[in-house]
């Protein structure tokens, strides 16, 4: 196969580009590939930013969410870092943790487009993990208390109730320490 660009040398570099679902194959010789490689790298960066911005804007204009009209979501603005939703769709970067709360109604849809998912399944920070463990401990105790009440074993129920309070108090203390 000869090079698509110079038509003289044997093509040894084969590129496939997919733009808007249109597949394009390019076959280049080493010489032409070297000449175009620098350009390609810059192109790639550009297309990543514009692609992301495209996803964000698409979401923005087409997904008429039940919470917001377009006008309202344009006015969404993070009070902590000052980033507006519109700026976010252009720059493609969040400005702080608070942005996630402020833009919340828009984000599940956005994350689904990017990741195909919108819920975290990975690890938790230690503080969250402890919180979850405490919550599940409390839920367990509550169930035990229910069973005790049904059996009319009120003494035991009161004992479990005190335990629940103790666990909750411990949690509050830990929080205050941090």
């Amino acid at each position: 196969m000869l090079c698509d660009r110079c038509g003289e040398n044997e093509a040894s570099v084969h590129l496939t580009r997919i733009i808007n679902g249109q597949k394009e194959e390019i076959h280049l010789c080493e010489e032409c590939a070297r000449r175009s490689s620098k350009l390609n790298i810059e192109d790639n960066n550009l297309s990543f930013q514009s692609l992301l911005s495209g996803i964000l804007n698409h979401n923005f204009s087409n997904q008429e969410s039940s919470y917001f009209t377009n006008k309202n979501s344009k006015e969404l603005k993070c009070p902590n870092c000052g980033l507006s939703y519109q700026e976010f769709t252009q720059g493609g970067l969040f400005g702080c943790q608070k942005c996630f709360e402020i833009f919340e109604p828009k984000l599940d849809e956005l994350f689904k487009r990017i990741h195909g998912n919108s819920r975290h399944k990975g690890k938790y920070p230690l503080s969250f993990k402890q919180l979850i463990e405490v919550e599940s401990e409390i839920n367990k105790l509550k169930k035990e208390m229910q069973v005790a009440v049904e059996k009319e074993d009120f003494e035991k129920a009161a004992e479990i109730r005190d335990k629940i309070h103790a666990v909750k108090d411990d949690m509050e203390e830990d929080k205050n320490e941090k």
Partner: protein
Amino acid sequence: MKNNLVSDWQIEDGNEKDVILSSRIRLARNLKKYKFPNRSNYEEKKELIASLKRELDFLIDSGFDFYLMSDLSEIEREVLHEEHLISQGHTESSETKALFLNNSKHLSIMVNEEDHLRLQILKAGLEFNDLWQKIDQIDNQLDEKLEYAFSDKWGYLTSCPTNVGAALRASVMCHLPALVLSGRIDNILGAVGKFGLTVRGVAGEGSSSEAELFQISNQITLGFNEKEIIDKLDSVIQQIIAEERKSREYLLRNNYLKLKDNVLRSLGILKYAYQLEEAEALKYLSRIKFGQDANLIEEKLDQDLFSKLLFKIKDAHLKHSFGMKLKQDKINIKRAEIIRNILNEE
């Protein structure tokens, strides 16, 4: 810099090193209290750095050095970038960007890159489990001292929506000469995309297609846990390794003489060339690595030649070894000299 900044993790033993040069895992973390680097001003960035230096002093005791990027020379920053220890964006001389770097130079924490913290760990060959264990442990140690930006719905919160969730990017650098030579690379790499992975030619020099080096990494970070992300990447990589080896066998069976000629010519050029550009040197070294892995070279050469030279022959490394004012033609002469010396001493 406190120590010699050239690392040697890349020449250590590793699994599947005929195809996989190195593995890397990177985590992005932000702190709840601070604006992300793209929205924070000079003072806020400095404050974050000061507080990290205080809170993370245990890192210094456990073998890390701390640097402000503005404390390092241009060459030192470029060398760190060539060694994959910092990103391109982190090479600017800045008082608001910083780096924790461990002594053996395979573990780095960039401060005020796109996120507050970018932790990354590197190893030669294919090895994700060990890397994950180690970086997970460091992450937990930081977690005890810092309050991470986190949501139970969306996981670790990052500047860029593409990193949200596990905020983990795992990647390998692989050498795929036979898939390139046989023209099968397009199909394979196209298929890789369908598994939520991305492929690109290895950083910066535009020499990827000639050196036949590719970086493959996960794209998706939300909806899967760390182990699932790593296992999926690992299973796809295993298949690419198998395909590359199959293609090598096929090429050797059908084009033995041509390949052997090509490999030995490359060796001849590197043994006698007086000046070499980086891309050209990488291209021939790549051929020689292929020749070594496929037993096409009878001469006794250092089995780890490629890994040993991969960083050493890059521009900033040469400037670092031979003086920072070296002009490009002198760099090319030095590069050829280093390679010549290694090849002719055997």
